């Protein structure tokens, strides 16, 4: 019973997919394909990322995270968060649990926003594809403006997010 409650959203979606298969076969065909591709990607990417997160949680002490990207880490904390984000490590939803662990371990809010922003918008392989399709001026300008925006958003969130806003 608890299991059904826990998985109610995915179960509901299965019902929607069944309904689509009966009444809207063309939408159903496209949806099935996209969902299947996504599921395959997740099955490949999610387990290693969670194990990495577990290793981080068990091995890296709070003080070290604090020193590296916590309060008072300054410019070094910024660059480190940015670099961690730009590693080619998959879609953004993978980064949330990682960011949560880092925050609980004492990372600065602004550095987490920069980490997420870099992860989402400033990935190196992704930039190469972007430059190929949309041109270097577009890519360079978007990169610069996005980085600026992410830094500003990080500073704003730093002001508003208190430790008690973070789930434990």
């Amino acid at each position, binding site marked *: 019973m608890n299991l059904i409650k826990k*998985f*109610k*959203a*995915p179960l509901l*979606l299965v019902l929607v*997919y069944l309904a689509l298969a009966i009444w809207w076969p063309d939408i*159903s065909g*496209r*949806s099935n394909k*996209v*969902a*299947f591709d*996504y*599921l395959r990607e*997740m099955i*490949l990417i999610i387990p*290693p990322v*969670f*194990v*990495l*997160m*577990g*290793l981080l949680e*068990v*091995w890296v002490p709070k003080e070290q995270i604090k020193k590296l990207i916590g309060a008072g880490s300054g410019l070094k904390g910024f660059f480190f968060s940015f670099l961690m984000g730009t590693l*080619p*490590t*998959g879609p*953004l*939803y993978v980064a*949330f*649990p990682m*960011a*949560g662990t880092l*925050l609980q371990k004492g990372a600065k*809010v602004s550095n987490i926003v920069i980490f*997420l*922003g870099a992860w*989402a*918008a400033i*990935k190196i*392989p992704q930039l190469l*594809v*972007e430059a*190929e*399709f*949309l041109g270097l001026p*577009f890519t360079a*300008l*978007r990169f610069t*403006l*996005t980085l600026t*925006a*992410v830094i500003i*958003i990080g500073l*704003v*969130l730093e002001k508003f997010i208190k430790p008690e*806003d*973070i*789930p434990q």
Partner: protein
Amino acid sequence: MTTIIVIYGLLAICLVWSLLKSLQKTIQSFKVAARALWKMAPGLLAIVGVVGLILGVLPPETITKLVGEEAGFLATATAAVLGAVTLIPALISFPLAASLLRTGATVTTIAAFITTLVMVGFVTAPMEIKALGKKFTLLRNSLSFVAALIIAGLMGVILR
């Protein structure tokens, strides 16, 4: 493919290091991972389902029709909203954006689409809330949406 190699390479290095240092702590790491994965599983599965539904109802051709031929603020706003609610892998979204440009969409519209696509996650918000809290998620996403519109506007002016 690079992603897979990087993640598994990183994992292999860290695991070997961890196993050499302590078997017990390595097992503990796996337990932590399993617990976190179990907690996140419903959210992850829901993302798969919702992304499939959205892209089933709104295939690239429909997106092209919605924002491709129209210009002006409405097209840009539509593109920004589409970018915020959909979750398209970068390898698909950039060719899509390039084809939108060819069909007559403006640079502003394309920039709005790409920027909200990468920075704002409507579908992933429940997961973000679970990991980082409601306030963090709401603030980050709403500020990113506004920033995306400003970035789009600036890019339209500069790259004219």
